[in-house]
Each structure stands twice: as C-alpha cells, then as structure tokens.
C-alpha cells in the first residue's frame, strides 16, 4: 500500500512532536473524526528574510499522516516563509515516492497545517507591530 520511503519516514519521523516556544501554531483538521494535525514553527531572520528555522508536527494519525507530517517539516525547514507557504500536497507526496490516492488528504492536511502556522505567525507579528 505504501512506498518504501513512506514506511521509512513513518518508522523514523524526524519532524513530529512540538516546539515549546513556537512562533506560530497551525491547528487543522476535524478532531471528531481524528483527521487532525498541529503544526508548530520557529522563524528566524536571515539576510533580511524570514526563514523557517524549525517545524514540528503533532498528529493523531495513521502511517500516511505521520509520514506527511514529518515530510512537510523536512521540505519547509530552511525555506523563506513565502516559499514554504507555497508547498503543495503534491510536493509532499512526491518526496515520499507517491501516496495512495485515498491517503492524499493526509498530505493536504500537512500542507494546510503549515500554511495555518505561517498565517498564525504573521497575525501575531502584525498585532505586535
């Protein structure tokens, strides 16, 4: 059902968990059916750009949820916010060597979670400014 890469990431997910003093948190999904992810981000300034220093994801989920959660972190870390917000579910699935069609919603959820976390960071910053 799953690619070798997906199973590998599931067995050893590097970017799951949470960040204690996160700069932004994105909570997405529907808790009543367990389709849920919380994305934590840490942002740093580099050459006048806002860069994702760290990303961690909490997920309730299945194999695909854990694998996509970790992978969205892997792709996003080191990227400027504008680039990171444009990551698509296809980018995540591609990195995993493809996902079964019925599991693409996990990839979508990871992408949405990251986007929500970046938006949360921007909102907080706007208020602070």
């Amino acid at each position, binding site marked *: 059902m799953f690619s070798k890469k997906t*199973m590998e990431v599931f067995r050893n997910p590097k970017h799951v968990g949470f960040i204690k003093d996160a700069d932004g948190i994105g909570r997405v999904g529907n808790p009543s*059916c367990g389709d849920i*992810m*919380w994305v934590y981000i840490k942002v740093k300034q580099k050459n006048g750009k806002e860069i994702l220093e760290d990303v961690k994801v*909490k*997920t309730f*989920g299945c*194999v695909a949820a854990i694998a996509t959660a970790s992978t969205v972190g892997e792709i996003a870390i080191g990227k400027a916010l504008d680039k990171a917000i444009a990551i698509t579910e296809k980018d995540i699935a591609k990195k995993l060597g493809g996902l079964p069609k*019925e599991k693409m919603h996990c990839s979508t959820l990871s992408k949405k979670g990251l986007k929500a976390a970046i938006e949360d960071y921007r909102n907080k910053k706007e208020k602070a400014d």
Partner: protein
Amino acid sequence: MKLLKSTTKNTAVNAGDVTNNTGNYTMTKRVYLDHAATTPLDKRVLKVMEPYFSEKFGNAASTHFFGEEAEEAVEKAREDIAKAINAKPGEIYFTSGGTESDNLALAGIMRTGKKCEQLVTSNIEHHAIIRTADSLKKEGFETKFLSVNKKGFIQIEDVEKALKKKTRLVSVMHANNEIGTIQPIKEIGEACHKKETLFHSDAVQTVGKEKIDVEKMNIDMLSASAHKFYGPKGVGFLFKREEIKIEPLMFGGSHEKGLRPSTSNTPGIVGMAKALKIGIIEMDEENAREKKMRDRLVKESLEIKNSWINGGFPKIAGCAPLGFDFVEGQSMLLMLSDKGIAASTGSACNSEGLLPSHVLTALGLPRVKCHGSLRFTLGRENTDTDIDYVLEVLPPIVKKLREISPLRGK
C-alpha cells in the same frame, strides 16, 4: 523464537529483529495474534490431505476406481462434519468458504420467494451477509438490519418485533469476528420458529471452536469456513435442513445435488473434516487455555490509561478487542508488526473506504475511538511467553504514538 536465515538487509520486515554477531542470521520473533482472520493449517490436517493432491487425485464424480476413492473420502468427510454439528450427511453442502456459504444461504432462500418478502439480519454481520442483503434489496426484496446494544448483543425482543408475516429469513451470526460477542442463537432460532420463519447463522468464527448442535440451537442453515479452525483455505460448508428448498448461485454439473456445481475439492474437504474433528476433541481444554491467556492480556493491557475493551461477554475464548484513546490503529499495527506481532484494527485509516468498522460504530463508539481499536485474537500456537512479549512491547508503542498526538490530554 525461531532462527531464520536472513536473506535481505534492512527490509521492512526485519526492522524490529535482533541480528546476532555474525549478521548472517536474524532472530525473528513472530507472534501471530490474528486468528479471527485466519489460522495456520494444523500439521495433522495437512497429513490427511496430502494423498488427495497427486496420489488419490480422482474426480469424485468419475465412475472408476480413481473417482470412487475420492468420492468415498468426500462422503466420509460429509458424515463426519454432519455428526460434529448434529446434522444429517445429506444436509451438508461443500462450498469454497464462508462468503460463498453466506451468499448461497441468503440469496438461495430469498430467490425461492416473492419479491415483497423480507430478510432480517443484524448491523454487526460480516460483509458477506451485509452486502448480500444489500444486493437482494436491489433485486427488490425487503431487508431489515437489527441494531445491537452497546455490549454488542442482539435483543430477543427486537427479533420478535421484527418478525412479520413477510419475513422469509432471519440471519444472525453466532459470534462476531471483531468483538467476539456470542449471540443468543438458540433463543433467536426459537423466536423465528414460533413464527415459522427460517433461521440462518453465520458460524464462521465458532465452528470448531464452540459447541454447535443445529437441533438444540434451532438453526435451519449454517455457514462455516475451514481456514478459521486450522483447516485449509478455499473450502467451507453450508448446512441446510433437508426440507428447505433453495436456489443455486452457480450452474453446471450435478455436484452437491446440483446446488453447488463444481468438481469437489477433495483434499480441502478431507482436511476440513479432520480439522473439525480435532477442534471438537480439543475444544474444552484449548478454550480454557486461550481464555486464561486472553484474560491476562486484557487485564494487563487495560492498565494502560485511557483504554477499553470492545463489546461485552460471552465472547469467543481467544478474542481481545481493545481500544486506546488518542492513537490510531494502523500505526499501532505496523509498529507491532515491526516487533513481530500480528494483530488487527477497525480504524478507518486501515480500511479501503476510509470508514471505521461498521461493527464498532454499531456499538455506538464515536469515530475517533474506532480509530484507536486494536484486536488480538489468540489461537492454538500461542503461549504465555507470547502474551508476556505483547505486554512488554505494546505500552511503549501506545506511549510513543501518544507523544506525537495532538489529542492527548484533551
């Protein structure tokens, strides 16, 4: 523990294995706790099957000595199986397994009746029943699905209420495959017979594991599958009372009195009869042994906080249908599998249609709880050491998954 030669490096299957110093051999722990899915073929069964593959290979329908020796074996098996459930040999029809027996019973009966007639069954049946009922509904028959209570049992009053003049057949499973609950079959059969309604029971999970007497239990038709009781895959039987007329699903030769045309699966049938015989002889002792192990597994697993057991008692002996909050079943399954433990789940994430188990939802379990279901079903080759191992491996897996779960503590 088995010493197996490792032929692959770092593959998915040996991720949890311990490799010795030389690296040539892998110590692989393999604990099979999914006996409701299928059971290993008993070596004693294999032995009696062997001659019927290439030595006594004849077609049981042929008129010569090759055919005769096959026919003799098939008829002896029919007698043995009939005796095991207190039926007559002429009431046993060999099929390819539980699914076919269920289809044949339901469609076979309904199609001898009128389109306005009704089939009553339950909402925790196997898909072989539920989807056959759905298909019959499309043909124009009426169907009614009885609900179970929170413990997973059919209420007799509900059966009585459902029985109408138009009810042609009631079908209720003996024991459920996901939660192990044993239904009050005798009483349901009695209620049906009072209203002169036929009663079928899918006994795939209990034949060879629980006592079955079709007379005492008021059963008119019964489905069984050999691979669930340490027999071969691809063979089963349908018990059908002599006086009941049903329509075949397939058409062809006159095998099984024309009700199930197809050359007899001689080795399978011989194996099934032997497996049933062994099952009945060893039943009491084996059930007591499995029950003891199951009870310990349940008790100690439930020491993990926020956990529960699905469905009430009586349950089949080896069935431990557990649940753990805040975690997802498929992830638990694969992490257990990496450690050499085979189990099952009713989680939506592990299903084709991304829907949680219909059995668990029938108990009133919310979707999020269905996700956390984990079923262990014990069998003959399990020992206390296996249970010790599960109890050692399972808590850290639940803990690990809870650590990354956003639902924890909410």
